Structure formats: structure tokens, C-alpha cells
């Protein structure tokens, strides 16, 4: 069956819902597609302590947005996957529906980079984000005793989430050095990384570590003096000189085996001691999901600081394919508030292009300012070089051309 809309939004996370609400409230006919049974995406699992206003609960914000979408009568295609996207523009769903529209927003978010570790296919090993979904959205403990492998903003945040949920987090460890672990298995690089977090470190120990990590010579000292038993962050042991080299168990996860590593991450002797756990979470970092943008023919560029391969887009978030927009983590890894503001910008731009708003340029200017403001106020920065990455993208987008069918 073929259905016609002004805008088809793929992905009902903060970016997609933000766009759908704005466009629909200006009178656009919008359809929203998501593969989950409920809209909200990863927003539903996010809990932050804001410096001024206290707890920020993603679940509440997602529910409000969902209610608005219902009030506006936006049709939601839930538990539906997009299997194809063709000019200009047809969005094919796995259930056989075909959605036609002049504008498409790809707001598919991100997935996690995998770091393979011996034993990682055993039930009980999961990506760190899965643990957050289970604990904060589904309200089920991913395990009773959990080890975390991989140190980054996401794993530190979720370690805290798990602790709040009553999970015993036995420690945060490095992954073993392999083709996929990159800097994450290198203690020196991880100390430097921690130092980049010092401005948002919610803990005096991390702040101290941040100060230590400012000079390279001091960084080396920092690793050498790093206590072999780890350092406790929110009561969770943070190990920068230990890697989990194997995950063992009969059918499901039972133990992790640990080795000490030198300051560059090279493996030393294996420890006799094994630690018993029932769940292991691996954090390899986030990766923008660009398959659909790529399938639609959008030009993509690799910008490490934004998470890897991303579609090229202009200051109105339109890709190199006219009518195809992107917002949220598929434009680069940033927080939910930035994603929401980006979605609202896209909703405004498209409403203006359809001719639904009178003061388009003024509304667009305001929407852009909101994106900048959310970026400035972000409590979490996923990559220390985010601003650099954004500048690279802006330079590249100025020299690219939009393809009009």
C-alpha cells in the first residue's frame, strides 16, 4: 500500500520526535517510523544529574514527546524497519508499506563499536548500551555482578546507572590490545582521555587525575603510580593497568580472567585470580548509523571526532541529496538535548520549504541558536576533539554540492 506524506521521519528518538512535533504542529503531514515497540529511542534510558536543575529523566521527556505526537495525530509505524529508500522519496518498510514524501529525515542514531574478546559470544556478555536499556528502560538488572570493559564517557555514565539500580559493579577494566581495541587498551592514552573529562568529572578523584594528566611527562608518572588495585570512582574500582583477556563459563558467563598490562597496553603476566561475574559489558564507543543515508546516495565523510563515517550535511542539516535531512547521532555523537534541538531545526526548515510558516528565516535562526546553546551547555562531551570535528565538517560541506533529482 502506498501512502503520501510531506515528511517521513525514520527513527523516533529525541531528534526524530523533535522534528515530527515541530513539522506536524505547523501543519505538515508527518509519518514516524521506528523499529522499537515504543518511541523514545535511547532517550528513555538516560538519567543525568544536572548542575543546577537536579535530575534530568529521559523517560519523562520521551513520554511527553510521545503524548504530543499522539495529540498531533502523527501516524507511528512502530516495530517497523526501513528496508529501502528510493528517489524521490519512497521509504519501503519491512511490512510491505510504502511511504512517499518530498522530505525524509534520517534520525537513526548510533550503534556501538564492537571489541571482540575471547568468550564474548557467551550469554551474559553485552554491549554497555544494552545494560543501560535493561536497567533504566526495562527495569531488569543485566546481572548481579557486572564487569565493564572499556573506559569512556558512556561506560562511566552507565557504571553509575548500574550502581543506582543496585548492581554490584566489580570494576572497569581495559580491553586486551587487539585490532579493534585501539586507544582503549592503552593506559597512557586512557589517562590522557580522563584528563579531557576533568571539566565534567563529577568526582574529586577524576578531577585530580585530570590535573595529573595535563603533561605527557606527568602522564607517564601517573600510569606508573596508578595503584595496582585500581582507584575507586563512585565506589567502582577503575583499573587502568588491567585488561580482561578472557570471559569464561560453561554455557553462560561465570568468570573473567585478568592480566596486568604495561603503560602501552602490552600484556604482562596473567593473574592467578579469576573474578566471578554473571555479566560483562563491553564499551567500544558509539558509531553513527549511516546505512540509510548511504543507500539514499548521500555523500559520506569520515570524521573521527564525530564518531566515524557520517553523511555530509549543511547548516540546515540537509544532506547532499535534496530533501534528505539528518539529525541526532547520525550527524555525529552528541547528547540527547543537541539531538532534540537538531530535530526541531529540521522540522522548522522543512515546514518553511513547504510554505507552512510565515516568518521562516527568523524561526530557522532561532532553531539554529538553540542547537548552539544546547551544545554549549552539554554536560557530556563524547569526544575531546568534538569542536575540531565540527569545523572539519563545516569546511567540507561548504565545498560539496547538493544533488537535485
Amino acid at each position, binding site marked *: 500500500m502506498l501512502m503520501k506524506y510531506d515528511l517521513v521521519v525514520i527513527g523516533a528518538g529525541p531528534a526524530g520526535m523533535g522534528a515530527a512535533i515541530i513539522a506536524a504542529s505547523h501543519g505538515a503531514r508527518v509519518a514516524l517510523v521506528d*523499529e*522499537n*515497540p*515504543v518511541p523514545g529511542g*535511547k532517550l528513555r534510558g538516560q*538519567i543525568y544529574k544536572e548542575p543546577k536543575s537536579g*535530575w534530568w*529523566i529521559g*523517560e519523562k521527556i520521551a513520554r511527553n514527546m510521545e503524548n504530543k505526537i499522539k495529540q498531533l495525530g502523527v501516524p507511528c509505524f512502530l*516495530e517497523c524497519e526501513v528496508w529501502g529508500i528510493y528517489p524521490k522519496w519512497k521509504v519501503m518498510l519491512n511490512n510491505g508499506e510504502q511511504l512517499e514524501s518530498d522530505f525524509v529525515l534520517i534520525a537513526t542514531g548510533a*550503534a*556501538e563499536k564492537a571489541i571482540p574478546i575471547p568468550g564474548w*559470544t*557467551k*550469554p*551474559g*556478555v*553485552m*554491549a554497555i*548500551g*544494552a*545494560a543501560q*536499556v*535493561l*536497567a*533504566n528502560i*526495562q*527495569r*531488569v*538488572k*543485566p546481572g*548481579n555482578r557486572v564487569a565493564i570493559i572499556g573506559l569512556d564517557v558512556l561506560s562511566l555514565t552507565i557504571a553509575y546507572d548500574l550502581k*543506582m*539500580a*543496585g548492581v554490584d559493579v566489580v570494576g572497569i577494566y581495559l580491553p586486551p590490545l587487539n585490532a579493534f581495541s585501539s586507544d582503549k587498551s592503552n593506559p597512557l592514552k586512557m589517562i590522557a582521555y580522563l584528563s579531557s573529562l576533568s571539566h565534567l568529572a563529577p568526582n574529586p578523584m577524576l578531577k585530580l587525575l585530570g590535573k595529573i594528566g595535563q603533561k605527557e611527562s606527568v602522564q607517564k608518572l601517573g600510569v606508573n603510580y596508578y595503584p595496582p588495585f585500581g582507584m575507586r570512582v563512585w565506589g567502582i574500582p577503575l583499573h587502568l593497568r588491567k585488561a580482561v583477556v578472557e570471559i569464561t563459563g560453561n*554455557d*553462560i558467563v561465570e568468570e573473567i580472567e585478568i592480566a596486568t598490562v604495561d603503560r602501552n597496553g602490552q600484556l604482562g603476566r596473567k593473574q592467578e585470580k579469576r573474578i566471578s561475574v554473571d555479566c560483562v559489558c563491553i564499551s567500544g564507543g558509539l558509531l553513527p548509523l549511516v546505512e540509510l543515508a548511504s543507500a539514499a546516495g548521500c555523500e559520506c565523510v569520515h570524521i573521527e571526532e564525530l564518531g566515524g563515517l557520517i553523511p555530509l550535511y549543511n547548516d540546515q542539516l540537509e544532506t547532499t541529496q535534496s530533501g534528505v535531512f539528518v539529525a541526532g547521532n547520525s550527524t555525529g555523537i552528541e547528547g540527547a538535548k543537541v539531538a532534540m534541538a537538531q530535530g526541531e531545526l529540521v522540522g522548522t526548515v522543512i515546514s518553511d520549504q513547504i510554505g507552512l510558516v510565515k516568518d521562516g528565516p527568523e524561526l530557522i535562526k532561532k532553531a539554529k541558536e538553540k542547537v548552539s546553546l544546547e551544545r554549549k551547555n552539554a554536560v557530556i562531551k563524547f569526544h575531546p576533539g568534538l569542536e575540531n570535528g565540527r569545523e572539519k565538517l563545516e569546511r567540507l560541506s561548504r565545498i560539496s554540492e547538493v544533488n537535485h533529482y
Partner: protein
Amino acid sequence: MRIEKHPILGYIDKKEVRITYNGVDYPAFEGETIAAALLANHIRILRYSEKGKKPRGIYCGIGHCYECRVTVDGERSVRACVTGVKDQMKIISQGIDADEI
């Protein structure tokens, strides 16, 4: 495994339904995913790999890796992590029988 009372998110307020997994009856909450409902009942093994018959469970939790695929009411390879439970849903693990594709 349920987080009945969360310090920030409060109590769980959901309606109980019944599901079966490999023929055994279990309680679940309306609106939660199959993967979460089974884990809440201490079930981690969702299928067995085709070649080595090795157990597999939840991995990515967002429908990308397809490690958690199960048979639901006769339909094969449904992703347990992005599919909501429904009352009387019959869920079966895959990869046990030798003649399975």
C-alpha cells in the same frame, strides 16, 4: 533480577501478563521486551548458533546484532530485544534441532 524500586525512577507500574518460553509458563510485564522479560526470569540463553550449537543471548540491545533472535508464535528470527511481549505469547529458542535451517 527486577529493579522493583529505583532511587530516581521509582516503582515499576506495569500490568502482568503470561508468556511461555520453550513450553514453560512465565510472568512478564506488558510493554517490556521479550529479552527483558526472559532475563527477569533468569533466562540468558535465547538461541544456539547454527554451526557450533553454542548458546547466544542479548548483545547490542537495540536490534542491530541479531544475536537475540527467537521464534515467536511460529514466526522465526524475531529480535527479542526490540519486540514487546503480549499476553499468551509463545516464544521458542532457535538452533536446537538438527534439521532447522
